[in-house]
């Protein structure tokens, strides 16, 4: 028997599991996860309405059909999953108060907290979880990230009202990270008919109204199960008003004009100056994210099928220049997928080829590829992708590549990728709470995404990814992922560039707001849940 807790070997006996479960429940209560019957009273003073400006808005409201979390942070507050995230983006008890894994990591059993309610008053029971997971696995319904998160799930069993058992196709130590609220948010099964108009989740805030690209309104869910350390019920805020404002400058202006209280991110150019210029007038939070930008090489077609040419391209790239010019010195240069603030940051990864334009020219001559045509492509937004590509184009041109740079929208870009009609791609990926979510989708040779991205095939990397997935020991897993990142840096299917950060800013009236490493607005003991307006 195994018990999934952070930083601990998962081997446990059944007795130990029960003891640990009881302990966890007690601990959870102490740390603000009381059962419904024990839920605290409303804090006598904390409340208010948060006006919140975000870059984007969701496409639709159905929690399973649409990516909600990263797109509309306000709407993410209606979400809750089987498991929650803590401030370091580690899976922790959520709707499930505890969980255990079978010794072979093929079965996970989740004990549900009693009395957790959906916003329509229906209890979140095992049957509701089963219905949710099955709907999220339906390729005609669910958005790709949710489907991908549950692709290893063979069957969901409602053992009894408060026990859910998940049977997996293959052993996986990563499964708990797959069932947190992003991307696997739970919705009330009896609300499916209204899912596109009025979603019913079980998160800290209830949906009120949504006018796409204009307004989102939510109010506090009075029966949310989480409490603060003093036993007061969370969240503190009475309401959230979301105001999508696509342009970075427009959001910042709205904050400065006092029209909003919080913005989700600002342009990197502003992020460098704003905290100093407006110190004492506005609060800022420099939040590292689980997001990394990179250059992706097409290993199946064009000049980068030759490793020598990839090495030349890598030696031509000045990471520090990109950090300064594109990211205005914020964040950190990426040597692996996870940044140093992440619990999955791995030490000892073999570095990618250092910036050395002379060596790049030499390698290019040696490969008889001087003046070779390179098609570099990217999306127009977020702006850093395009700006990075422009710099890379200049750096590659300087050492002897002939670079054609194309910008496409998402659909056209994916078409180019599928048709393998590109040589390199300035891209980024984010919010993979467990490294398996990154490596098994972008590096594993059999993964559909790898096939249309780099087309990378490396037997050793495949073995390590499979081994890491079935390894319960966290330290051992970290070593395995470091080894995979070393292979990535040597073979260069992708070249890591920069770990992304978010600079959030808010008015001085906003109190108790603690964004997490993931930039999550709704994490246990932090984010919007613990915020209030003075």
């Amino acid at each position, binding site marked *: 028997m195994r018990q999934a807790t952070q930083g601990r070997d998962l081997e446990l006996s059944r007795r130990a599991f029960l003891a640990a479960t009881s302990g966890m429940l007690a601990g959870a209560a102490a740390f603000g996860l009381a059962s419904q019957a024990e839920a605290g009273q409303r804090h006598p003073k904390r409340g208010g309405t948060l006006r919140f400006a975000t870059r984007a808005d969701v*496409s*639709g*409201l*159905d929690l399973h*059909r649409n*990516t909600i979390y990263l797109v509309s942070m306000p709407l993410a507050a209606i979400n809750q999953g089987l498991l929650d995230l803590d401030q370091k983006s580690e899976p922790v008890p959520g709707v499930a108060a505890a969980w255990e894994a079978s010794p072979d990591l093929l079965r996970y059993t989740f004990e549900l907290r009693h009395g957790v309610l959906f916003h329509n008053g229906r209890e979140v029971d095992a049957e509701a979880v089963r219905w949710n997971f099955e709907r999220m696995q339906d*390729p*005609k319904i669910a*958005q*790709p*990230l949710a489907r*991908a998160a549950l692709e290893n799930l063979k069957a969901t069993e409602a053992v009894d009202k408060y026990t859910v058992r998940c049977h997996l196709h293959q052993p996986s130590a990563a499964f708990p990270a797959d069932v947190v609220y992003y991307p696997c948010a739970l919705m009330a099964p009896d609300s499916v008919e209204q899912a*596109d*108009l009025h979603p019913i989740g079980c998160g800290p805030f209830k949906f009120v109204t949504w*006018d*796409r*690209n*204009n*307004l989102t309104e939510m109010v506090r869910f009075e029966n949310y199960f989480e409490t603060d350390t003093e036993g007061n019920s969370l969240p503190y805020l009475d309401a959230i008003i979301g*105001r*999508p*404002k*696509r*342009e970075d*400058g*427009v959001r910042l*202006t*709205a904050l*400065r*004009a006092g*029209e909003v209280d919080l913005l989700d991110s600002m342009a990197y150019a502003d992020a460098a100056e704003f905290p100093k210029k407006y110190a004492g007038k506005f609060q800022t939070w420099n939040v590292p994210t689980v997001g990394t930008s990179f250059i992706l090489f097409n290993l199946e077609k064009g000049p980068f099928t030759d490793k020598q040419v990839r090495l030349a391209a890598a030696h031509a790239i000045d990471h520090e220049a990109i950090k300064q010019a594109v990211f205005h010195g914020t964040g950190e240069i990426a040597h692996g997928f996870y940044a140093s603030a992440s619990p999955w940051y791995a030490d000892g990864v073999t570095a990618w080829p250092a910036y050395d334009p002379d060596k790049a020219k030499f390698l290019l001559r040696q490969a008889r590829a001087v003046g070779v045509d390179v098609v570099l492509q990217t999306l127009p937004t977020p702006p850093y992708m395009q700006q990075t590509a422009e710099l890379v184009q200049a750096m590659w041109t300087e050492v002897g590549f002939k670079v054609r740079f194309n910008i496409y*929208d*998402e*659909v*056209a870009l*994916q*078409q180019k*990728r*599928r048709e393998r009609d590109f040589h390199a791609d300035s891209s980024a*990926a984010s919010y993979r709470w467990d490294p398996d979510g990154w490596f098994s*989708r972008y590096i594993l040779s059999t993964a*559909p*995404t790898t*096939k*249309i991205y780099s087309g990378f095939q490396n037997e050793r990397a495949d073995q390590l990814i499979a081994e890491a997935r079935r390894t319960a020991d966290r330290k051992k897993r970290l070593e395995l992922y470091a080894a995979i990142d070393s292979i990535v840096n040597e073979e260069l299917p992708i070249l890591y560039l920069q770990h992304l950060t978010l600079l959030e800013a808010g008015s001085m009236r906003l109190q108790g707001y603690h964004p997490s490493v993931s930039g999550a607005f709704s994490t246990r003991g932090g984010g919007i849940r613990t915020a209030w307006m003075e």
Partner: protein
Amino acid sequence: MVMYTINRILYLIPVLFILTVAAFSLVHCLPGDVIDVLAGQEGVVDPAVRQALEHEYGLNKPLYTQYFIWLNHVLHGDFGTSQVTRRPIALEIFKRIPATLYLAIVGTIISLLIAVPLGTMAAVKRNTAVDYAAQLLSLVGISIPEFWFALLCVLFFSLYLGWLPSSEYYSPFDHLGLSIQHIILPAAALGIRQAAITTRLTRSTMLDEVQKEYVDTARSLGLPEWKVIYQYTLRNAMIPTLTISGLQLAQLLGGTVVIETIFAWPGVGRTLFEAIISRDFPVIQAGVLILGVAVVVINLLVDLMYRVLNPRVRLA
């Protein structure tokens, strides 16, 4: 007049038919479809899933069949549902029309309020300081990019003076006071640029008019100068101004994406832009058709206004 109006409305039928064909065809020239969008960042769609979704959205039928199905629904007043949000088009597009219409009309009114007096004064006081100032202002107005002027307005009136809000939309039917506060900057940003063009036009048509014989006749009959200018000359000079303003208004209905983005204005332009990015064909088709109808109707109204301004204009 009645026959003319009926005739013009009948002309609309082939125009709108051509518009539906153009809207439908152009939309389907875009690479990819909504299923690619739903595949999202992963970019991979299982062929069986694609087949099922194509069947669900009717994308597996021949294009001409899809067109006639859509046309049939439109003729029955059903624009369908968005393939992305799965909400009725009424919520996606119709709800945006008042915001866009409001912005375009107020912008045009601001434009006319500036352009007509300024252009008239410039013509009446030709080659004086007033004329030079009006010409300079209109030249500056034409030269300044719209987005830049909008940003200047925000910086000065919202951040520096703190008089007006920098963004957001409130319906005049729900919150009249807030709505007026929020419309001023975006409408001014739109209207002042339009005013620059209309001022020059008004000036030049007024100059033509004041040289005509009927003006001399009116003056020789001893009519006061203000009456000659404002009751007779200006009225005739307004016909081209009205034509241009009508066209500008029609253009504003679909062409305010930049202003809508800067002022976070939830109009049709932004919605259409988002729909194009996400290949939401029903929304794009409905949007293009509705805007097309609006343009045609505005042109008809402008033509009818000619007769009001100048009864000698025969509408036949």
